[in-house]
């Protein structure tokens, strides 16, 4: 696939498997993540079928028992967050795009980069292995609350839970290494002229995400070791009868777990920013304001975590404080979203597939954000806590962030990655089905969540008050099946376009950022001409130019003509 002379002596294994090239590693992350997404989707299909048609044999799985149900839900959550969203949004796109956007030849630490992918792959294998050990996979919820998760006999899951902790720890280690790499690359490997305030928004977002990750995950790493000791040795860090404190785990988990939402959201928003400004053919509105908002939200994200614990028995005065910070954090995100809307305003909008997904991401995420206010407010949360309202809210945030975000990125950068264009028609079909089916699943969940339907119920037909909502379960399950079938056009498009897609030139979208100055796909070492940067990345539709774009590396005609941000 790559033809440059530097790689002639590199064999197949070094080029495609044990590669230190940031682009290959980025694609490895993405492909692994997409494979895990199929698995996560399959798990969702199985437990949704159980909810819609309780105790009937699920086609393609068989009968679901209560224990298996718990394991299915737990593993669905774990896989989608840690093995789909993290590797694709942060590690995958971060690896592929950050060096290219900065005009660098590779990451700052290429071998560390390879190590981080292989650590991730080992974590994936450990997690997959946990399905097949005696006792089955982890079933204590993706949040692994003790005491349930701290003793093997409480859930009946033996090695599954231990392997789960190990896999998550390895995944964290991998993300640590990747994060160090992205930060060092951004600080030390910007090409000449690429000042910090000329970096694309996506690079800013990636760095913010990795910083947030590195500073929030530490206590949970310590906590995971303690939980491991509780599980395997029988210590009592989180066991009340031994003097331990189960609430401590909740604090450690959410001190990481809530910032993690922003770790995933920011790279996704970054890709949306690049796509929106390109397909509106307008400079992004409020470049610096967006960056400052990212910084503010990054800081605020460390002081909102206890809003997950309003009914866990925390001090009510503390709860009020966390309510306030939670509502406050919507301000910087509102600024970002309004900046995006202002970018669209009076632009010449082109509805190409990446743009559809970018707009879809904003629209759906908005619903997720607004319903978050209900859950962040103590009074309403006490009623809504642990109902399907939470599940719906969560998916209205994380689904657009993860899937609309990654599809935005894949449709937009696919020509760069594989040198071919994707089919627009299949892209439209994929978007239409995904968008509609997603809402068909989760609007019913809001409805019966508001009616008080609790989460984590294996068989809703056992509860008289839930029986009237059974038809909504069926609708949501039909939506799930439609959503999964709706991915077929994407899979066809993804693999088919590699062979039959129209050949892509260097810059098929007429974009400004540096990655579009490289050949499609870029060879090892990326740039055939080392770029120097003269301007910011969003100079679209400048009145003094014939073309409506202006690459960052284009030297100004006259010294006077240079526009600074």
């Amino acid at each position: 696939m790559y033809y440059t002379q530097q790689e002639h002596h590199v064999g197949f294994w070094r080029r495609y498997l044990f590669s230190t090239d940031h682009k290959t590693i980025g694609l490895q992350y993405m492909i692994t993540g997409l494979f895990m997404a199929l698995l996560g989707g399959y798990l969702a299909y199985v437990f949704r079928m159980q909810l819609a048609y309780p105790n009937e044999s699920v086609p393609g799985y068989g009968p679901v028992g209560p224990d298996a149900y718990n394991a299915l839900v737990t593993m669905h959550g774990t896989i989608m967050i840690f093995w789909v969203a993290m590797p694709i949004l942060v590690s995958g796109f971060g690896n592929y795009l950050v060096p290219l956007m900065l005009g660098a030849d590779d990451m700052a630490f290429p071998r560390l980069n390879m190590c981080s992918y292989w650590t991730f792959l080992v974590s994936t294998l450990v997690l997959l292995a946990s399905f097949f050990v005696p006792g089955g996979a982890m079933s204590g919820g993706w949040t692994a609350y003790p005491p349930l998760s701290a003793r093997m006999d409480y859930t009946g899951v033996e090695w599954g839970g231990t392997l789960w902790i190990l896999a998550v720890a390895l995944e964290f280690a991998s993300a640590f290494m990747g994060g160090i790499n992205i930060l060092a690359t951004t600080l030390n490997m910007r090409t000449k002229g690429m000042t910090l305030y000329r970096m694309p928004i996506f690079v800013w977002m990636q760095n913010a995400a990795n910083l947030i990750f590195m500073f929030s995950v530490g206590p949970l790493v310590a906590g995971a070791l303690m939980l491991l000791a509780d599980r395997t040795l029988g210590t009592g860090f989180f066991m009340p009868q031994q003097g331990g404190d189960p609430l401590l785990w909740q604090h450690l988990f959410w001190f990481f777990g809530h910032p993690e939402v922003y770790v995933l959201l920011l790279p996704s928003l970054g890709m949306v920013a690049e796509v929106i400004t390109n397909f509106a053919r307008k400079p992004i509105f409020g470049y610096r304001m967006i960056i400052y908002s990212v910084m503010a939200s990054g800081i605020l994200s460390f002081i909102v975590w206890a809003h997950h614990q309003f009914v866990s028995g925390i001090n009510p005065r503390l709860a009020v404080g966390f309510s306030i910070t939670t509502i406050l954090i919507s301000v910087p995100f509102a600024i970002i979203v309004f900046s995006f809307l202002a970018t669209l305003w009076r632009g010449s909008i082109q509805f190409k597939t990446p743009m559809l997904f970018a707009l879809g991401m904003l629209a759906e995420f908005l619903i997720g954000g607004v319903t978050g206010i209900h859950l962040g407010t103590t009074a309403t949360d006490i009623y809504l806590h642990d109902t399907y309202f939470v599940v719906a809210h969560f998916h209205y945030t994380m689904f657009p962030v993860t899937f609309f975000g990654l599809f935005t990125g894949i449709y937009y950068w696919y020509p760069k990655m594989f040198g071919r264009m994707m089919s627009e028609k299949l892209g439209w079909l994929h978007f239409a089905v995904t968008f509609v089916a997603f809402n068909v699943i989760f609007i019913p969940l809001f409805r019966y969540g508001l009616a008080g339907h609790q989460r984590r119920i294996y068989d809703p037909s056992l509860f008289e008050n839930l029986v009237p909502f059974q038809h909504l379960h069926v609708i949501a399950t039909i939506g799930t099946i439609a959503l999964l079938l709706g991915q077929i056009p994407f899979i066809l498009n993804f693999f088919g376009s590699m062979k039959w897609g129209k050949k892509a030139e260097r810059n098929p979208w007429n974009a400004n950022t540096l990655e579009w100055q490289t050949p499609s796909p870029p060879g090892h070492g990326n740039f055939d001409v080392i770029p120097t940067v003269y301007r910011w990345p969003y100079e679209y539709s400048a009145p003094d130019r014939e073309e409506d774009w202006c690459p960052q590396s284009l030297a100004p005609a006259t010294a006077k003509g240079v526009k600074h941000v």
Partner: protein
Amino acid sequence: MSEAQAATMDRYEVPSVVTGRMGMWWFLASEIVIFGGALVCYLLSRWHHPDWAESAAHTNEVIGLINTVVLLTSSLTMVLAHDAIHHAQPKRALRLMGVTVLLGVCFLGLKALEYTHEIQEGYTPLKNLFWSYYYFLTGLHALHIVAGLVAIVTVMRGLAKGKNSQRVEYVGIYWHFVDVVWIFLFPLLYLAPKI
């Protein structure tokens, strides 16, 4: 400065911190949060359990004190090794790093001796929550010492072949960090009020 380094200097915007050193500092930043989280858990629990003082009375502060001196001295020899590199004396640096490794091994030996005594007297990780925390924190720290020793020996092997002398500084920063962690652990576990 090698030719490759000069080319890199010309290729990119001038960095304010050398890339290797920056990587180490980011790594330590994340390590600080791990140990910070573990220590905060311990401190909060200790606050709620004044009775832990009774268990803490059985820690051996004499060995703890000796180990503190051993570890601080090993940090001193590490700094001197870095200084030797600065003055282009790789042989002296190798000798000093050798002393650091010996002192590190000495620390681990004393720690093992301490664990043995405690376990023989019945103070196992399962005795009560204080001892769970004690073994967890000191064990995590000991693992970092082991990792540090492996890193130092790796750097020494490179240095013996005349390669990568800049890594002496990076591994030194890490070693000082492991030392500083002990400076927190020693008073909080051994010296905090006892009955």
